[in-house]
């Protein structure tokens, strides 16, 4: 379970995250939806302890991320904004490295890597160097890396960004499977289709604040609209920065 309690973060004089509170439960896919610049990435970075909050706190399974970053990160699998692969390493080597960084033994690392390569259908790229990978292949490696230590909580920053249709569908399927397996999945997106396709709950972010929180159906009911798109436009007060 991931909890954000009145998170606040400023960069210089800009208030990137003003006041963000929400809960992402186990067995659920929670979407952090908002236009570009709403504070999604910054909120996620506060959750996985890359940034220190100026106010409020982030909890991962009850552990305060700012106080015990290592313990919190151990319970988190993170797919950041940029996949950040090493061009001279193969997909398999990326996974083995991540496994060792998370503290798995050599034998465990081998086993988990083999299992994930099979699960995400990565046999074809397992032993190729990542320099020549497509966007989809890169993101797959990054996702596999996030799931290696079988974390209870998975945080994905715009996971389908730049992916083609088959890759997007595969990513959504994986996300759904994780939640159905009892994991807590939190992902950020500015794409409405994504929300209706896989999400159980939605947290709508606008200008560094939570504009609304609930199931897609609840949000429709609250706004009195029949289409999610209309509902969101009303909730965030503008159409700017939303993608279809």
């Amino acid at each position, binding site marked *: 379970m991931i909890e954000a309690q009145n998170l606040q973060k400023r960069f210089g004089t800009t208030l990137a995250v003003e006041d963000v509170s929400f809960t992402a439960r186990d067995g659920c896919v929670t979407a952090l939806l908002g236009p570009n610049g709403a504070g999604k990435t910054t909120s996620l970075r506060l959750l996985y302890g890359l*940034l220190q909050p100026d106010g409020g706190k982030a909890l991962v399974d009850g552990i305060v991320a700012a106080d015990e970053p290592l313990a919190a990160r151990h319970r988190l699998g993170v797919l*950041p904004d*940029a996949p*950040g692969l*090493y061009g001279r390493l193969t997909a398999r*080597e990326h996974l083995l490295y991540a496994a060792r*960084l998370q503290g798995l033994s050599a034998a465990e690392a081998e086993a988990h890597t083999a299992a994930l390569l099979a699960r995400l259908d990565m046999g074809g790229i397992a032993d190729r160097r990542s320099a020549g990978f497509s966007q989809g292949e890169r993101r797959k490696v990054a996702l596999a890396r996030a799931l290696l230590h079988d974390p209870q909580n998975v945080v994905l920053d715009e996971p389908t960004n730049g992916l083609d249709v088959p890759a997007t569908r595969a990513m959504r399927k994986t996300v759904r499977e994780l939640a159905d397996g009892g994991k807590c999945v939190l992902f950020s997106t500015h794409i409405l289709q994504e929300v209706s396709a896989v999400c159980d709950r939605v947290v709508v972010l606008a200008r560094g604040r939570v504009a609304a929180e609930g199931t897609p159906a609840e949000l429709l009911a609250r706004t009195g609209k029949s289409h999610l798109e209309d509902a969101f436009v009303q909730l965030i007060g503008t159409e700017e920065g939303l993608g279809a």
Partner: protein
Amino acid sequence: MTAKALAVFAKEALDAARDRRSLTSALSFALFGPLVLALALTLSAKGSDDGQPLELAVAGPENAPSLVRFLEQNHVEVKAPPADVVAAVRRGDLKVALRIPAGYGGDFRASRPARVELIHDASRLGARTPVRRLERLLERYEARVAGQRLSARGVSPQIIRPLQVEARDLSTTASRAALALATLPIFLLMATFLGGMNVAIDTTAGERERGSLESLLVHAVPRRDLVLGKWMAAVAFNLLSVALTLLLSFLVLRWDRLQKTDVPVSLSVDGALRFLLLLLPLALLAPALQMLLALFARSFKEAQTQLSLLMLLPMVPGLLLSFQSFEAQPWMRIVPILAEQILMRDLLYGQTLAVSTQVLTAGATLAFTALCLGATTRLLHHERIVLGR
């Protein structure tokens, strides 16, 4: 040392080993030093004429048989001249030539100054030694003949020799080779700064440039382990470069000795180990310092430019030390790089190094290394470094 730090080390070493840029920079410099050494040794052997006969083309030897005989008695191998002596010297076929005009005999017998022409090209560096040798021989012949003429007239030759100058050039091939060998510590010193530089940059500024720093930091791994692992990988490349420089230098010296048995210089295993022991703390410091500075850079290129300036750092004390009067002050013993260079200079001049001084210097350098690593670790917590691209 944790398992995580070792995992970082293993990954970075593998990554760097596959990086042509890192490998060539570590290895090419290791080739460069010994190559220069080989060149210097070859030149120092060529520049010497110890005991070797001087080949000299003499035009008109029949005009001055006694002079030619004198030259031959003094290790000069008199050769027949080519058709055009001047052109041959101008082309560089001959370093020096002697022309004795037909009027020599008449002038000589009449005790008039007899003309001989010494033909050479002063702009050719290689010709200087044989020309000077020939000039000295001619002066000696002149003095001898002058003495004989004075004696024949009842005057002691002593009175025209108010001075007896004895210049004793003690330089031998061996000592000149030793001078060439003195460049070795400088190359070793540079190897400690260059060997792992690419790895140090690639694992810090390179990581920022690729945008892989964030995905690295989301793992449950302490920043300290990341820094240690990356540092160890750079150090490994550094030591590889230093060891290779040393090994190749050994081979060059061995080859040199096989070529010319009269070059008795050798790098003793003992001496080499002393240098290595001196340089080891520096080989640990250099990557730590480079990583710290490179982490401020946003790209590989930017870091490379900045670190090239850092390369000047080891050169500055070298310049300072080239002044003979330079006296090592106590505080200099704990200034990394400078302290090592003082010790190397002392070692080269054959002084025995006090163990306490060596320990003090090594300790200071290691402390500085730890400081750099600590600062790098702290820097990895800074949001601007982690996210700023």
